[in-house]
Structure formats: C-alpha cells, structure tokens
C-alpha cells in the first residue's frame, strides 16, 4: 500500500516529467550511464591490479547521486563517504582525472595520494570522499556554518549510508545543524546494508530513518532512490526550502547496491533473490525504457549516448594507464601549506 506521502510524490513526479526539458532528461540518463560504466571499468581494472586498496562501487545507486546533485549550483558544497565515485562524477568532476586518481597517477584529482575512498575537487566544492564512517557529518556542519556566516547563498549536501547513522557524529551533527539553522541537506542513501549488517539488526526504530529525524526538529522525507526524477523532485523541494528559509532538511533515498560492499565481499549475508528484486528496478534499465515509451527519445539517440559514454570511459582508462606515477618528491608535498 502506498502511503499518502508516496502518492503525493508520484503526482509531483508526473508534473516533473512533463516540465523537464528533453536535454535535461537525457543528461540525467547520460550521467547515470556514465557512472555505471565508470564503475564497471573500475571493477575490471581492480582485477587487473591497476586499481588497488579498498574499492566500493556505486552500482545500483546511480539515480540518487544524479537526481539530487542535478539540483545544486556552484556555490553548494558536497561531502560524502568512501562510496564516492558516483557523487564525484555527478558533480562533474573530470572523468579522466577521477580514473587517474584510482590508478594512483600523478594526473589524478589528488595526484594519486588519495585513492578511491578519498576523492576531492575543491574547485567544484567537492570536499571528499571520507573513509572513516561518520567523519563527514561535522565537516558538513562547518562548511554550512561558513556558507551561513558569509551569506554566500550556498548550501551543503551531506551524503551518507544507513550504517553511518549509528555513529555519534550523525546525531551530534543533526542536533547542531538544527539549533544553528545550518543550510545542510542530509541525504541518506539507505541501501539496507552497512557492509554485512542489515539495518534490521543494527538499528532501533525500524527500516525508515526519516521518521526519527523529527527528534531534531528537522523536516524530513523519503523518496524512491531508484527513480531519478523522483529524487530530483524531492531534492529540489528540500533545496528550495533551505535556500528560502534556512536551516537543515533531510531526505532518505531508498536504494540498493547491486554488488558487494567492496570487491572483497562474498555477500553471504543476503539472498540472491533480494538482489534480483532490486536489479529489476535498475534505473539504468528502467529510465531509458520510460524515455522511449513516452516518446521523448528513440533507440538511435539512446545508442548514441551509450556509445559516446563508453568512449569517454575507455578514454579515461587510456588516460589513466598512460599517465605517470607521481614523483617521489610528492611524498613530502601537501602536508603543510607554506607561508612566508
């Protein structure tokens, strides 16, 4: 049974669908497909030993990053966790430099020093990729404080997973954001698992998170994270509200990672039926189907997008492969900012 809220959401989505320009919709699709292809290339290159360390893929969750980040402007900050490739690409970080970072190359976003879990691009106000679970919450509060203090008009979007809500920093930051009226949109990507722990085992309060947020006096809602247009609409509502009235908001996106937590995960903790159920809602499959059936795009246009994206990804792998490793002297650079 759909709840009232969901019904209302659906209506909004319908309006949204007709009001969005074709180019906008194609771009949403293109970005999701780009992320998917990027992740597949990462997995392949992890197997080949070109990408190392821990690798957490975003496969299945593309609609969340793409739908939400499409509502932001260049004054807005983004922070996220280690499953950060999708957010980075949706924010428009250079595909070549992102891939090169994963290859640990000098041409990477962080000159090969950060790796998959620690992506940064301060020019795009993409303030990381944070690999300690819960570490990004206070950072979001501080960035938002600066936006508020300097009256930049910018807001902060803080992405996080269901598992991270058990860290103190989550609760402490919700509280602080509320009492200081900080312009933060908290976006929970509820993919039902934190590593091997399903939320019903590690969370008190049921499978919905947004309901618990009222404790902190923060407006919160929930959206189908597999539906890029729904995510976009829900984010837009929240972002508009923050920009107009100040103070934080909270959006829970119900989503799913189709693959293991990292490439080292055998997924003993969940049944393949569950994965299959969610795979049937794959935004990369469903959204273009809908675009075609609604007469917004034809198969040929879709094929062209796909072809272009695949070339872009291949180029990024070539770029990363042919790039140099950082020089040894880089080891001691970037520890302090030098001043006279």
């Amino acid at each position, binding site marked *: 049974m759909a709840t009232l809220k969901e019904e209302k959401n659906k209506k909004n989505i319908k309006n949204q669908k007709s009001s969005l320009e074709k180019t906008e919709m194609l771009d949403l699709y293109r970005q999701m497909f780009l992320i998917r292809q990027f992740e597949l290339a990462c997995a392949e290159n992890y197997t080949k030993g070109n990408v*190392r*360390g*821990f690798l957490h893929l975003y496969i299945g969750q593309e609609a969340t990053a793409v739908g939400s980040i499409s509502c932001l402007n260049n004054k807005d900050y983004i922070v996220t966790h280690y499953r950060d490739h999708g957010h980075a690409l949706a924010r428009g970080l250079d595909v070549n430099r992102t891939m090169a970072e994963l290859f*640990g*190359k000098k041409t990477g976003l*962080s000159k*090969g*020093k*950060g*790796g998959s*879990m*620690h992506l940064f691009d301060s020019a795009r106000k993409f303030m990381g990729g*944070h*690999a*300690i*679970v*819960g*570490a990004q919450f206070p950072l979001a509060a501080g960035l938002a404080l600066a936006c508020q203090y300097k009256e930049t008009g910018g807001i902060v979007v803080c992405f996080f997973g269901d*598992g*991270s809500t*058990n*860290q*103190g920093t989550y609760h402490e930051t919700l509280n602080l954001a509320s009492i200081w009226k900080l312009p933060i949109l908290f976006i929970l990507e509820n993919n039902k698992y*934190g*590593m*091997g*722990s399903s939320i019903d*085992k*590690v*969370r008190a309060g049921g499978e919905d998170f947004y309901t618990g947020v009222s404790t902190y006096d923060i407006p919160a809602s929930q959206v189908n994270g597999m539906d890029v247009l729904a995510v976009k609409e829900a984010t837009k509502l929240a972002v508009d509200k923050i920009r107009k009235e100040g103070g934080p908001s909270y959006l829970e996106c119900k989503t799913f990672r189709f693959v293991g937590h990292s490439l080292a995960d055998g997924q*003993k*903790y969940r049944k393949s039926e569950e994965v299959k159920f969610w795979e049937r809602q794959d935004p990369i499959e469903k959204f273009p189907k809908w675009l075609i059936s609604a007469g917004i795009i034809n198969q040929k246009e879709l094929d062209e997008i796909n072809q272009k994206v695949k070339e872009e990804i291949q180029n990024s792998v070539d770029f990363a492969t042919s790039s140099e*490793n*950082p020089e*040894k002297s*880089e*080891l*001691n650079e970037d*520890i302090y900012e030098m001043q006279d």
Partner: protein
Amino acid sequence: MSEMIMREAIKKALEESLENDPNVLIMGEDIGEYGGAYAVTDGLLKKFGSNRIKDTPISEATFIGAGIGAAAAGLRPVVELMSISFSLVGFDQIVNMAGNLRYMSGGQISVPMVIRAPTGAGVQLGATHSQSFETWLAEVPGIYCVCPSNPKDALGLLRTSIKNNNPVIFAEPALLYGSKGEVPEDYYEIPLGSANIVKEGNDITIMSYGAGMSIIEEVNQKLEESNISAEILDLRSLNPIDYKTIEESIKKTNKLVAIDTSRKNGGIMAELVSTIQEKFLDWLDGPIIRIGAEDVPWPYNKDLENAAYPSSNKVIEKIYKQLLN
C-alpha cells in the same frame, strides 16, 4: 608442531577462551554473520551463538565503552575493531576509561578486556586506513599493548591477554594475516612484556615488532651474505617493554638497529631508543640506528607508499653508513 596461518592462530585462541571461560564474549562490527572484515571470527557465531558473538552497529566509541563496562562488571570481553585507525573514534573510552578507571578508583575497578585490531600500512588503503596507533596506545599507563609477528606468538599472546585482568591492546599486523608459521601442539602461553630472540647473533642487534619483523628477515639475509651475524629481537610487547632481553642482547653485540613500520616521529622506537641510551649507553659502540616510516600521511600510490615504508634497502644502507664503516 603444526603449521598454521596467523588468522587461524588468533581464531584458535578466541575459540579456546570461549570454550573455557563462560565470561568471555566477543563483540565488533560484522564479526558474526559476515565472519569479520579479515575473516578471523568466521564460524564462531554458528558455534557459540549470538549471545557470545555479538555483532555491533558502527559505533566504536560506544561498543568499546560497553566492553569496558562489561569488563568492570566481571565479563571478559574481546572487542574487535576493523582497523586500529578506527580506535580514534573510541579513543576517549580507551584512554580515559580503560586506562584510568583502576587508578582513579584507587584500585577498586578492574577492566579485563582485550581490544583486537588490524594495524599497519602496505596495501594502499590511503591516509585514513593505514596507521599504526598501537604506538600511541602503548604510552597509556594502565593498558598493556602487544603485537605479534607470527602465528605462534599470536596464539600464545592472545591466550595471556584474554586471561589478563587489565585492558590489553592486541594489534594484528594486517599484512600478516595470511602468513604461515609453526605452532606447538602442546598448550603454552607467552607472558606480556617478554621479547623474543628470534635468532642469536654476535655482531649487531636488530629489533622491531609486528610487520617490521619481515623487513628484518630481508635485512638479515643480506647481512648473512656479507658474513655479518645479526641477533634478531622481536619486541612482541610494546607495553611493558622487555628491557632485560634488550640489555642482554646489546651487551653481546654492542650495536643496535631499531625498525618501526609506523611513523618515526613519536613512534614507539623513539621511546625505546632514548631509554636504551639512558640505561645502556656504555655498552653501545656507536649510535643507535632508528628507521621508521616517513613522517607523512600514508599515500595511496604504490610507489609513494613504498617510499614511505621502511625498506630493507634503507636499513642496510644505514647500517653500513653509520655502524659498520
């Protein structure tokens, strides 16, 4: 003797303790159904049930603290962290509670608990996941701190750690989980605070602990090729430190090399070297050589990580330049 890998040896100690003492229980993230991030506790949930193998939320401060509370009330919790880097999230609990409770209460409260955690760099996990905080934790009075380098020591030390009535940090070199070694069939324990002479020698003492012992192995091979006889010393315990064994070795070789795979600045070897100079300066023929990781955040790139990590080449070079010239 039987051959075992490090991971199995640690698991064996856990299993025995669970069997022998009903007050022992294990808690940590994904240690049950998932089997542990490094598969150390794989199968224990099935065998001992969820009452004793407790999966926790991602709440290090709280489940470390809960371990301390449970210990204060008479249980013997073994808390697993997925990485010693995550100890930072629970640092206040470890230092201020586990470390200080006994002293502040004038000896009324005991905290018989073990915190196990993988430690160290070397697999390109980058700055947040590659640190070696056993060197920080070894400074805290009231807490013991050990770090095995092989399956035999892992088994013996963990047995003792779980039986000990004080908090023990049990650091497990992540690089070594799959490493093999001989383990005695008969029951044995290894006391906390006892270093191990891995190999006797006359010309030079080389000491380290944990993953650093693999570097020493390489160094030793190169020295043997030049007919230099090194005495190899594995600290095993960072608090307390076995100065007696160190003293005997120095009195024999009069030369000391100290290797640390964590950052050199403020590392445990800084403490050791200065104390050794205070105590045994007269027995030393030359400067103590100290080699650690570079004082930088751990980089992701493999070449840079290698450059930050103390290599056997760097050690050899220093030995020849400063001690054997």
